[in-house]
């Protein structure tokens, strides 16, 4: 007849509400140097307005967040990234 409660529970993925583990991609892959000339790579860490994304969004550790921020600021000085942008992505 009607499916029991236990059956229904496992028809969909029981893990569906769980958050994905956030990790620092620099720590995980052993990247020690962030090149300020690589604008494509740095685009991952800025939003559509060109602002640097906070650590709680990117998942970076403090050390690499700071290095990434200085790399973005250097790229902005060299006009590889804008200070203020619109629809960057």
């Amino acid at each position, binding site marked *: 007849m009607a499916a029991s409660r236990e059956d229904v529970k496992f028809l969909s993925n029981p893990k569906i509400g769980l958050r994905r583990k956030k990790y620092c*991609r620099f720590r995980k*892959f*052993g*990247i*020690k*140097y962030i*090149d*300020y*000339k690589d604008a494509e*790579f740095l685009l991952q860490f800025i939003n559509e307005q060109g602002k640097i994304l906070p650590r709680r969004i990117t998942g970076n550790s403090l050390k690499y967040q700071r290095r990434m921020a200085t790399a973005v600021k*250097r790229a*902005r*000085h*060299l*006009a*590889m*990234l*804008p*200070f203020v*942008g619109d629809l960057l992505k």
Partner: protein
Amino acid sequence: MRHYEVTFIVDPVLSGDEVKSTAEHIQNELRQAGAELVAVDELGLRQLAYPINKRSSGIYYCIEFKCESAAWLGKFELNMTRNERLLRYLTVKLDKYGVKYNDDKRNGRIGKRKPETTTTEDGGDLAPAVVNLDA
């Protein structure tokens, strides 16, 4: 030995010869000051993210050099400021990781980044650094 990297943008309205001569002039200045040029990278004509001096594109050069002492860097940068053909410049001191990164990049060991792969970009040398943390 200290490693430095200077990136500068040359005015795009200049003719090809003038651009080359500007880059040559900078390199000669570095050599005269006693620096050893490691690499000269011409990133070419690129669109600027915002206009500088009313120009919207520029020719990027990146020169990596090393020297014993860099007391002359102040004067070198002053000359770059006074050079009318340069739009912007940036001098950066490279730490050992930066030097290694540049070296790997020149030898083609750094490809397109893929976050899903488990191989690290810098090969196995950084594995010992991770292991030491556990010890």
